[in-house]
Every structure is written in structure tokens, then in C-alpha cells.
């Protein structure tokens, strides 16, 4: 027993010493080596010596979100001519304390800029961004950069709601039961904005359509995604779309002889008889921009969000073998409208009810002729309202 106490005490002492030494060292490092102000070039950072870190919730084998984001990393690497050892990926990091460790390891490995790609990483990243003002942190899908007051912390996302609106057109034209189903991850703004846009797209070509929404409570759980899809089909839905990472909704839809609209990746190879079309984000545009800006000493916006018009949100090829006649024409027309600014996704008259982050009720009533500006000024979606016709099953 005495030995154990001695051991614990000495271990505690060692930890205290390490912590005590660690803090001043990192402070002096940031004060001495690099200028702290935003926009000034970091000490002789070039394409040859920059190191870039990534934190991902799964790995590219998910064939979904992380796969798609990693395609962006590869695109950035090709465009900028970076070598493999300049990019450090941390895959399969959960949205808990593991994230903190992963980012610390990236910092110790000498990363100059770190990208974290999952919603739940934001709090951990904020914590470390405050400790390391000399390193640039970029968080996808987050919403706290503008309020954080940190010059080295940025949020980025894309107006995926525009892509979902167009994909919704394919669903609206295809449905026979006029009942769509949506496999949704969590009741967050990003998800609600996505399915509302999808529903509005479907409704623009099919005024009678309604949509059932069921949550999986996970970004990636193939079994639950398949079960939720089956439950939606059992309710009578005949076109399924998803805000979840796997192909299980596509294959379950195919098994039941109904159709599906995908996200993040072309899902036609997984379910050739069911998958109509998918929408995805080309993350490479932002990654290339942010890394180039850091090297050139230019400012990275606190919130960055671009969409269809800039080629950041893309549609995968339409499955013409099963899509309804005229789908491509209707999508092209809406695409042109969004590009020209004549078509707004969240256009009035539109009403909805939702719940704020703090749990208080929220209502919106957009009159005819006006519209809700999504993803501005914050890059993260902020539409939290459930509109008539959307039926959330809880």
C-alpha cells in the first residue's frame, strides 16, 4: 500500500512539473517566432515547408462524408503540388476527448493549419485555438468562429441547401405516393436546413408532396439508417433521401423497389435501380484557398460559404434510366435561376416553427416577395424551422 501511495504521489508530481513547464514554453514560442496579428505572413511559410493537419470522424472507407472531404484534400494536394508528408490525417476520431488529443498531436507534429471536419469537434478546437494563436484552425460546419473573438479560428461550409433543392426536384417528379422520406442524423440546423431545402425543391415541381422525417441520432450507423429507411418505406414513402453517411438508405430503398436521393457521393454504383441523383460539396476549393491565403499572408474570412454558382456545391450525374421524364430540364432551369439570383430556396410566403439552441421556441413568417438568407453571415446553416408538409416522426 505504501508503495502505491509513493508511486501515485510521484506520478502526480511529475505531471505537475510537466504542466508547469509546458505553459510558459508554448507562450514564449508564440511570442518569439511568429507575428501574432491576423493577415501577416507566418514566418517564411512556403508551399515546401507548410504542414497541414486534418481531423475526421470516420475514414474515407465510409464512401460518404469523410470520403468526399478527403477527395477535397487530394484536390488541394494536386493543385498546390504538396508532398504526402506535408499532410497529416487523423481518421476515426470521436466527438469527445479523443479529438483534443488528436489536435494536440497535430500541433506537436508541426502543423501550421488544422482542419476539423465534424460538428462536434468545434468546442475542442476552440479551446486549443485560444492556446495556440500562431496556428490557424478551420472548422467545417461550425458556428462559433465569429463570436469567439479569436483571429486564428475560422468556420467554413458550403450552401449545400442549394444542391439539396435541386436534388429534391428529382424526388418530387419521381414520387408516385407523393410521400417522401428523409433519414436525418440529428435535429440540428445543418440537418433541418438540408431537408427543408430538399422538400422545397420537391414541392416546387409537385405541390401535393409531403415528407416524413425520422432521426437516426448518429452521423454514421448503417444498421439504424437501414432500419429507419425501412420504417419510412413501411409508412408509404417511395423516395428516400438522407443526411447520414452510409449507403444503407440507398440499398434498403432498392430492396423495397423504391427510389433514393443521395448525399456526399454518387450512390448509383451501390444501388443502380434506386439512386436517382446525389449532391455533394467540393471541399477542395476551400482547402486550396485557405492554405494559399495562409502562405500569401492574406486574410482567411472568419466565415466562408460558397455554393452552386461558384462550383462548390455539385450534383452527381442523374440516373437517366430511372429518373422521371423532364427531370434534367427542371433541374437545369432551377440551377440557372439560383445562379442568376432570381430563384431563392427559402422564399416567401413561408412559415415554420422550431426550437432555438437554448430550447426556446422559434417562429418564422416570410411574406411573399421576401426570402430567408441562409448561411449568412455565419457559414453554418441557421434554418431551424419545420415547415408545413414536413412531418417529423418522434
Amino acid at each position, binding site marked *: 500500500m505504501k508503495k502505491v501511495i509513493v508511486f501515485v504521489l510521484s506520478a502526480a508530481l511529475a505531471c505537475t512539473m510537466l504542466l508547469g513547464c509546458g505553459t510558459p514554453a508554448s507562450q514564449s514560442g508564440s511570442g518569439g517566432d511568429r507575428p501574432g496579428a491576423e493577415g501577416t505572413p507566418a514566418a517564411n511559410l512556403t508551399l515546401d515547408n507548410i504542414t497541414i493537419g486534418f481531423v475526421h470522424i470516420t475514414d*474515407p472507407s465510409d464512401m460518404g462524408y469523410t470520403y468526399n472531404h478527403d477527395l477535397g484534400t487530394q484536390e488541394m494536394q494536386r493543385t498546390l503540388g504538396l508532398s504526402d508528408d506535408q499532410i497529416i490525417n487523423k481518421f476515426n476520431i470521436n466527438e469527445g476527448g479523443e479529438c483534443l488529443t488528436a489536435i494536440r498531436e497535430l500541433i506537436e507534429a508541426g502543423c501550421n493549419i488544422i482542419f476539423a471536419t465534424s460538428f462536434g469537434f468545434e468546442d475542442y478546437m476552440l479551446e486549443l485555438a485560444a492556446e495556440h494563436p500562431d496556428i490557424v484552425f478551420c472548422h467545417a460546419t461550425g458556428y462559433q468562429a465569429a463570436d469567439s473573438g479569436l483571429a486564428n479560428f475560422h468556420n467554413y461550409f458550403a450552401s449545400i441547401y442549394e444542391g439539396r433543392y435541386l436534388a429534391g426536384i428529382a424526388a418530387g417528379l419521381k414520387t408516385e405516393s407523393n410521400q417522401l422520406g428523409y433519414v436525418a442524423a440529428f435535429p440540428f440546423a445543418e440537418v433541418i436546413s438540408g431537408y427543408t431545402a430538399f422538400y422545397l425543391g420537391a414541392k416546387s415541381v409537385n405541390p401535393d408532396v409531403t415528407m416524413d422525417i425520422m432521426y437516426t*441520432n448518429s452521423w454514421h450507423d448503417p*444498421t439504424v439508417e437501414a432500419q429507419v429507411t425501412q420504417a419510412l418505406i413501411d409508412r408509404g414513402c417511395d423516395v428516400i433521401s438522407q443526411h447520414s453517411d452510409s449507403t444503407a438508405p440507398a440499398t434498403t430503398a432498392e430492396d423495397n423497389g423504391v427510389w433514393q436521393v443521395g448525399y456526399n457521393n454518387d450512390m448509383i454504383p451501390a444501388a443502380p435501380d434506386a439512386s436517382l441523383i446525389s449532391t455533394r460539396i467540393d471541399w477542395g476549393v476551400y482547402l486550396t484557398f485557405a492554405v494559399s491565403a495562409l502562405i500569401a499572408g492574406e486574410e482567411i474570412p472568419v466565415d466562408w460559404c460558397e455554393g452552386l454558382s461558384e462550383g462548390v456545391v455539385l450534383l452527381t450525374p442523374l440516373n437517366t434510366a430511372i429518373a422521371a421524364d423532364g427531370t434534367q430540364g427542371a433541374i437545369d432551369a432551377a440551377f440557372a435561376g439560383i445562379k442568376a439570383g432570381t430563384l431563392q430556396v427559402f422564399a416567401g410566403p413561408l412559415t415554420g416553427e422550431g426550437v432555438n439552441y437554448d430550447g426556446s421556441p422559434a417562429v418564422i413568417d416570410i411574406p411573399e416577395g421576401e426570402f430567408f438568407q441562409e448561411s449568412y453571415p455565419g457559414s453554418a446553416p441557421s434554418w431551424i424551422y419545420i415547415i408545413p408538409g414536413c412531418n417529423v*416522426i418522434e
Partner: protein
Amino acid sequence: MLDLGTTLVMAAVLAGTPLLLGALGEILTERSGNLNLGVEGMMFMGAIMGLMGSFMYEQAMTAAGAQTIGFFSALAALVMSFAAGAFGALIYSFLTITLRSNQNVTGLVLTIFGTGFANFLGEFAGQQAGGYLAVGAATKAAFAPLAIPFLSDIPLLGPLFFQYNWMVYFALAVAVVMAVFLFRTRFGLNLRAVGEDPAAADAAGISVSRYRYMATVIGGGICGTGGMYMSMVTTSGVWVHGCVTGYGWLAVALVIFATWSPLRGILVAAVFGGLMVVRMYVSIPGLPIQIYEMLPYVATILVLIITSVRQSKKHAMPAGTGLNYFREDRE
């Protein structure tokens, strides 16, 4: 359209089947005195190897210019997944029975190994196939719900009993055969004796090692077919990273829920499956999803409490389970 109750029962059976297979494998294993916590690992190995079996059969048929036949594709999946699970269990048996290493530690290692093995191989094969590791239409059709002439068309009874994929009936058959084997044959009696008191069984001239090896390896193979259900039915023959995650542990919990009885396993697997999908069919306003998701675990805890309060020897874990047997150890 079918009514709510029918669709709920059907979804419950489909959700419960992989758990039933995993639990049946573990029941056989634990009846022999081995507590193999590697169920998840063996299910993962069965999941990827079953899918690979079908995929490679299809590739071979395409290369030979022959027609892919769904029956042989499904058979390839079944054999390969059984072999993969059995191989995992063989590693476990060698370590625990021959080398007498700690059963808990070995089982946990097998879980970690199997998970990594499957995800690595699935990702690798997916890249080789140019994106997705996915099976073709003939194989998908082989795992689709059955349409038995006449029987499947009976109103209500047809959907409830005769419209599942063949794996459901396979799992039921395994459960019945295992129950007969354990409780109606001499070999079954010997196996139970080995699990309850290996020293007494040894004294009676039963080879403890042989019984433990056989039960654990066959049990592992059954777990492997449960994993194959996840990759061939749940995700319809497309490899999805981590598709078994968590289900191996649920199967271990189900063994306790079933009180080590294969036939009771059928019932509790359906109940377990039902508790997992009930929120998608029956909504109680105001009840958060998280509460629904706790239901299978709450049920397991309740069963544990009830069985330990009753102190019934008949429904308890075999007394020798978890302990390695070493003849010279006898006191």
C-alpha cells in the same frame, strides 16, 4: 399497405436475426465453459469474408463468362463467413484451451483483431473494385425476402411468417438443432457436463479439450454467419465501414437475456430486435429518442436482476464458464 403491428413485427424479426445468430454461437461456446468475448470480432470477420465470398464467386463467374447463380453465391457467403468465424474462434481456442491464457483478455483481443481485419480488408477490396465493394443483382436477389408460392400470399400470416429472407429461417433452424443437440443427445449432455464441471467430466472419461475446441469453433462459425447477415442483408451486399459495431456486444448480452437456452434465444432476440426498432413505428409524444435507445439494455439489466434474485440453477451461467481447465490443477 400492411398495418403498423405487422410491419413492426417484421422489422423486429429482421433486427433480431443477426443478434440471434451471434447469441446462438456464444451459447454453444459458453455451454462448453469458454467465455468468448470475441463475438464482435468473429461477426466482423464473418461479415467481410461472407461478402468477399459472394464477390469473388461473382468475379470468377464473370471471368469464365458464366451466369451468376444466386444460390451458389449465397452458399459461398455462408461457407466463407462460417469459416472466417470458426478461424477466429480457433485462434481463441488455441490460446485459452491449449496455452491456457486468460479468457477475457483473449476474447477482447479477438474483438479488436476482427474489427480491424474486416475494416482493413473491406476498405482495401473496395479500393481495388474502384469505390464500393458491392455484389451484383443475382446475389442481392438471393438475399431478398422470399416469395413462397401460396404460403407467402396468405393474408396476415404470409407477411408475418413466410416473407423473410432465408437467413431468418436458417437462424431458426440453427436454434432448434442446437436445442435438440444440447438437451436430447448424449454429446450434448457431455458438452454441458464439460461446461458445468470439467473435472467431473474429465473423471468420467470425457475429453474436455476436444469438446471445448469443437463447441467454440462451431460457435464461432455461427457468430460469423450472424456477421454475414449484417453485410449481406442489412447493408444489402455493400461493404460499409463498421457495419457490425456494437452488435457483437448486444449478442453477448442476449446470451444472458436468453439464460443460455437456444429456444428462449429465438423469443428474446425478437423482443430485443423489437425494442431496437420500436421508436420508428410507435411514437409516444415527448419521449426522447435516447430513452427508446436504452430499452434493450434496460431489459437486459431487468433480466439479470430477476434471474439472480430467483437463484435458479437451471437458468444460471454454466458453473465452469470463464475458467480454464488444467488437469494437474485439481485439488
